[in-house]
């Protein structure tokens, strides 16, 4: 049972959290201006890197806040957590 450091509550067990997929995928400003392919990329396509990956988490059995985390997909180590709206911090895997 991994510990996830919620930026609001501190380290808590992963069972309290809900995964929200890749971070920094903004809802398009004007979806109607997008081609089908551009829209499909927003809806269906996500990165799947081997290594550091910025993703969204929700502490939904705790403070119920969404936040972002950089996780190394090879080790599951959380390299950084940061609040929504903040830029992705520099990390070293």
């Amino acid at each position: 049972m991994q510990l996830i450091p919620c930026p609001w509550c501190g380290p808590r067990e992963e069972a309290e959290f809900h995964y929200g997929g890749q971070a920094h995928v903004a809802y398009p400003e004007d979806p109607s201006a997008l081609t089908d392919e551009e829209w499909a990329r927003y809806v269906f396509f996500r990165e799947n890197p081997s290594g550091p990956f910025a993703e969204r988490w929700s502490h939904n059995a705790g403070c119920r806040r969404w936040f972002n985390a950089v996780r190394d997909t090879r080790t599951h180590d959380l390299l950084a957590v940061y609040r929504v709206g903040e830029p992705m911090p520099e990390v070293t895997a």
Partner: protein
Amino acid sequence: MNLRTPTGGAVDRNTVLHFTFNGTEYTGHPGDTLASALLAHGVHEIGSSVKLGRPRGIVAAGSEDPTSLVQVEAPFSEPMLLATTVELYDGLVARGLAGQGRLSAEPDPARYDAKHEHCDVLVVGAGPAGLVAALTAARAGARVVLVDEQNQAGGALLGVDEYLDDRPSAEWVADVVAELRSTPGVLVLERTTAFGMYQDGFVLALQKRTDHLGFAAPASAARQRVWRIRTRQTVLATGAHERPVVFADNDRPGIMLASSARTFLHRYGVLPGSRAVVFTTNDSAYCAAIDLAESGVDVALVVDARPEAPARLATECAARGIEVRAGQVVTGTDGPGRITAAHVGDERIACDALLVSGGWNPVVSLFSQARGKLRYDAELGAFVPGEELSSVRVAGSATGELDLTACARQGRDAGAGAARAAGFTAGGQVPLPASDSRCTARSGLVLWRVPGSDDTSFVDLQRDSTVADVLRATGAGLRSLEHIKRYTTIGTAHDQGKTSGMIAAGIVAEALGVELAEQRPTTFRPPYTSVSFAALAGRDRGELHDPVRVTSIHPWHVEHGALFEDVGQWKRPWYYPRPGEDLHTAVLRECKATREGVGMMDGSTLGKIDVQGRDAGAFLDMLYTNMMSTLKVGRIRYGVMCGVDGMVIDDGTVIRVGEQRYLVTTTTGNAAKVLDWMEEWLQTEWPHLDVHCTSVTEHWATIPLVGPRSRDVLAAVAPDLDVSNEAFEFMTWRDTEVAGVPARVCRISFSGELAYEINVTAWHGITVWEALMAAGERYGITPYGTETMHVLRAEKGYPIIGQETDATVTPQDLGMSWAVSKKKRDFIGKRSFARAENNRTDRKQLVGLLPADPSVLLPEGSQIVETDRLPEPPVRMLGHVTSSYPSAALGRTFALALVRSGHERIGETLYVPVDDSLVPVTVTESVLYDKEGARRDG
């Protein structure tokens, strides 16, 4: 036969325990295991093997034993326990197994629980290394937890009669344990096996708290407890297991690991037989030979596979009349069941016990679970920890170190290092004990097997897997140990290959002609030893398994004979059978009464979310496909919610309570998901919006009052409310008093009938419910449950999200284009409606189905095909039945279905396979009752 020594061992000879094994009564003593008590009576044969039915005995003295599987029958039946780990108690009844046990058909009456523990340093294993590690960390001031699977501390010291610092080792152990126990913040747990090691210092351990008490176990105490330990630093002092050597007919009862025989002698005062042969590749088995000879066993021969026997030990053997033959091996055995002779050279040496040592395997399971890499130690012939981990240290024979003082030094270093890493530096130096042991185990020869009959050379005694099986696997081209493990099943039994895995790896490497250092060992996985599901479940079973949610009106439903349906965690009334009624007759009655008079249901489980803020309207405009910001205060709108992919995720009504306040309802099962969905958008995409969402599901009791006479009933209990159609229109709400209680009444309908939804605080739910029942009595008011609700809505073609839909269905597929705004610039899902995929004409669409035979009820989930005869497979499936009911209003059965190009197929005949026949059905619009909506206003 009595093989109990006159003195010695940690058993209480003054107390006699009676037990029954395989139908025979025996005696033993407190301190015995089932295995030691049986050996004391000369009983070696426990059960038989799983595939071949060959007799199986006792190979080891602890949890690494591959063969002594028993079913304990009393006090409670429990399968697949090891005789070597079942502590003896008075009245124990057990029986040997033929490889497989039998789960009890009776519910287990025992309690199981779980406990959380946090510490700075966790030490696993209370042998010399673990004890010194724990004491060092404790003296430094760390919070220490020490767990050990045995019923007393000491580890390997329990199985020897050695002295530490010129006094019996038990005294040294007792002193260390006493200091640990008296140190604040230190927890010592016996009978506690750390069975799983996970990320971030999370370790699961199983404590057997009352198993050893048998019938005397108090019912009030949890029998077993799962400790959920979160530690900063861990010291693994998990020891080493002796491994055998494989040779022909090596599976007979009476063939035992040499160190285990020594343990049975010193810990339990039991001899393995009266005449023994010892077969070894290293020095350690000499101690077993010498100790047993001194205890009266006729040790016929020590067979040492090494070219030369160790001079000093050979001299000691000679002094006790034990012959030593170096450079020889055991090539086979004789016996009807239990061994009667060992084959050495051309000779058959008569014996009733053959004690084998093939070296030592460090116990690296937890280290490997913690993702530590292993390294092959060629001198030891075993995998050892191959790297340092930041928060896991290994000490003692788990590292491959087999000298006691060196093990203790590793323990001291690991304990100090762990404490320092956890932030503790102070502490007195723990002195290292010195042993008088004559036998060191290193300096051995690595020997996996003696060539012989491959078919009877057993690698995994529990799985009946032989050398021939391993060679078949390598012969078939398998090279990876993981693949060979699965092909041969070696290492997959209860013991997870504790004694067999390394040997299998060695034989594979020999067969492939590769170095073991190049082989990747199989991955160790939890649990280290067997853990019952009952222990894992703990208290989370029965009514504590999952919370049960009931509405404030629930007691009335129980009192009036409702049967309940589980909807998520909610208990909802399903239907209210009268005497003699089954589901169908009760539902037909409830439907008829509601459509012709008045019915009432408990709708309190409906999800309710209070949405407030300056931007609440704009926010809901983005979430729903239709426009909510234009809704006037006092009015209600039905809304559909989609994901960004344009698929329906929920529906419900939206009530405009005030200029900046809405009350949103969701389906019962989706209440939490919809709230999460709202929060996700508000927090991650639109944090600038001034909107706050709160779940108010349980604040309200909600009672739909349904049917042509509902107006009369409401009028009788709401004297202040003008219930006329003109004053109180469809899709509006009013605040008033119902039965003297402040209430919000909504004119909405999920049945097509004139209907009111009465909302009051949950506190008053049952009062208002009873008042409505009383007021409706003269109209034959009928309470109805979810089944009738489903039928009434299906007759009107109203979909239930999650029943008619499955995340691939759009509002257009449901025939709900009317609920999709064309005016809004954007909303979630809108862009996807323009995708080519969403505009295919052959999408599955919601339609009604009328079976040609009006009495045929189509099973929900049935497939729909085009022709009246099934063509050769693959058969093209057009869709499936989503809902199907008999209908009182229609006087026949009907169904809803998702059908490819369904909207174009109205009027067509399609076919539904039911049992062995194809049932013809006519495709209709999804609305089957009151298409013109004439009943809505009463």
